[in-house]
């Protein structure tokens, strides 16, 4: 597989102003707070919420459950990722074909880097110094240095690259391809695709008609020990279990209709996969590599979070504005939590006590108490069309 290695020297194109001042002067989401600074010691208390329509990232202090600042980014931000080592936030600006790198200590823009068409999903290497961004519209993946704030390489040969996963030492990057039943494996040092792992058989059609929509591989979700990767293939209604060392599929599980992607529980026991075609949720044991439960879900499920010592799973249903919860001890359905707006994705705090869900239709973030399974607060002043929630030390994901 060929690759193109394009060294670029884009650095610090934009010197950002103090963010809160900008937001307040525009009257967009005035929090009433003064200039805000984040220290490395405090970083774990903050949640970062990209706002697609207001081109900024809201910063929420989980001790107050309030928005304390906004950082300006580019147009239609899709996802953010945080590097603790560099105290930097990376935001993909899908409409600008750029990423914004924000200095978290000052909340100013450290750099804007031009990438390929439609950068969406972001993954930071285990060392925290390289960030991979999938340019879904161009079929390329960019590797960006957070030391120089510049693009190191742009790798082609992908098929609508979606979510990505680094291996333990950051030498390999596994890329889910939305446009194919293929996981691409990138050698990070060589900056090229070195392997393609087919996931299931190509879609079976008996059709003389026009092309249908196609959902390939959304993500490769690694087990906690990094040994196996779980890659669902939407059109094949199955999930491949990939040995991430040998890069071979060791098993293919039959799931429900149109599986989305696997979400790992923090204790490593289960992989939870929403099946959006038949509105069920498959729970797969990572020990037996078998589906141990298939439970009723809801429409348009966009994410799964777990908490309360991994006893409860919360499945986000964008189609029905609710969370469906499961008891992970009995593997049975539990409560449903109605939400006041359209949920996108969420993040649960590493202590498993609270879940924050971005509500795009009401410009809020919902706070869920994971023990009582209750909506306990609606955080306003977030921004226009919040699209996700991310924090350090947590299981972050994007849709």
């Amino acid at each position, binding site marked *: 597989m060929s690759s193109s290695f394009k060294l670029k020297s884009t650095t610090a194109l934009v010197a950002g102003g103090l963010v809160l001042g900008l937001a307040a002067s525009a009257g967009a989401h005035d929090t009433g707070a003064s200039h805000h600074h984040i220290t490395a010691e405090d970083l774990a208390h903050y949640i970062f919420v990209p706002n697609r329509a207001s081109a900024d990232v809201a910063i929420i202090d989980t001790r107050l459950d309030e928005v304390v600042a906004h950082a300006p980014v580019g147009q239609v931000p899709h996802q953010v990722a945080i590097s603790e080592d560099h105290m930097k936030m990376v935001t993909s600006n899908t409409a600008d074909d750029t990423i914004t790198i924000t200095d978290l200590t000052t909340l100013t823009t450290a750099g804007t880097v031009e990438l390929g068409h439609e950068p969406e999903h972001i993954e930071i290497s285990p060392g925290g110094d390289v960030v991979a961004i999938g340019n*879904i*519209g*161009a*079929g390329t993946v960019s590797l960006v240095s957070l030391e120089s704030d510049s693009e190191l390489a742009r790798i082609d*040969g*992908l*098929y*609508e690259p*979606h979510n990505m996963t680094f291996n333990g030492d950051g030498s390999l990057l596994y890329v889910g*391809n*939305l*446009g*194919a*039943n*293929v996981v691409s494996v990138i050698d990070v040092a060589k900056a090229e695709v070195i392997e*393609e792992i*087919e996931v299931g*058989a*190509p*879609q*079976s*059609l*008996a*059709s*003389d*008609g*026009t*092309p*249908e*929509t*196609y*959902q*390939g591989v*959304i993500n490769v979700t690694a087990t906690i020990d990094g040994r196996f990767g779980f890659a669902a293939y*939407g*059109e094949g*209604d199955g999930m491949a279990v990939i040995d991430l060392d040998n890069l071979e599929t060791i098993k293919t599980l039959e799931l429900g*209709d*149109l599986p989305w992607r696997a979400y790992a529980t923090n204790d490593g026991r289960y992989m939870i996969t929403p099946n*959006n*075609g*038949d509105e069920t949720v498959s729970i797969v044991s990572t020990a037996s590599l078998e589906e141990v439960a298939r439970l009723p879900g809801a*429409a*348009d499920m*966009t994410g799964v979070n777990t908490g309360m010592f991994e006893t409860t799973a919360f499945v986000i249903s*964008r*189609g029905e504005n609710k969370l469906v919860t499961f008891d992970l001890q009995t593997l049975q359905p539990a409560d449903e939590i109605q939400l006041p707006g359209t949920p996108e994705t969420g993040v649960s705090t590493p202590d498993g006590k609270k879940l924050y869900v971005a509500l795009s239709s009401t410009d809020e973030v919902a706070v869920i108490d994971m023990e009582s399974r209750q909506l306990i607060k609606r955080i306003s002043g977030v921004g226009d069309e919040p699209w996700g929630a991310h924090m350090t030390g947590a299981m972050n994901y994007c*849709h």
Partner: protein
Amino acid sequence: MARIVKAAQASPHIPKTVLDQAEADCETALCFAETLAKHLPDLARIEAVDHPDTDSIRWVSTLPSVTANVKGERLHLELGHFGRKAVGELRQALAGSSLPIELDLRGNAGGDFERMLRIAGALIGTQHSAVKIDYWDRSELRDLSGTGDQASEIIRVLIDEDTASAALLLARLLETFADAEIVGLPLQKTPIFLKRRVTIDHDWRLVLPVATLRVAQP
């Protein structure tokens, strides 16, 4: 390139001479696919990938496939395509009705094969070894799995010149196993192909026949 060559080699319907020529002439997967499509226009086709975002992919799954109306003493079911929710919609339409069914497949050009099998099972009930799939190196028999929904008699199936592939196979299954009357056109016995969509590159896919499908006689 290797992946798409392997997929093409698995098709019994592509002559070896065409494969050899495409391999000899081409260095890229797209060139290889274009050569196949050029030489075998009735079998292989190239699709442009329009790069829908994931929102579109999820939301298109909500587009209805089944329209149900009571017409006189019968339940008229229009199955326009084999969408994501077609099976559930069909079950919902059948629930609580004991009226004879008229299934309208006019304009349905086929689609997902596995979903068609589930729909056939919901309409006909369990039938062992109902569909025969002939790959180049083996054959396979597929069952229809009944779900208890098929309480009503299927009296007729409407087809037209646009009814094709999976929809045509469904009509043949209903004629064979449910004694349904086929209305509109004679039911042609032309081959129906099982096809695979193989990704060529970021912008193109190749649709290749990999097997023929037919109703296995009871």
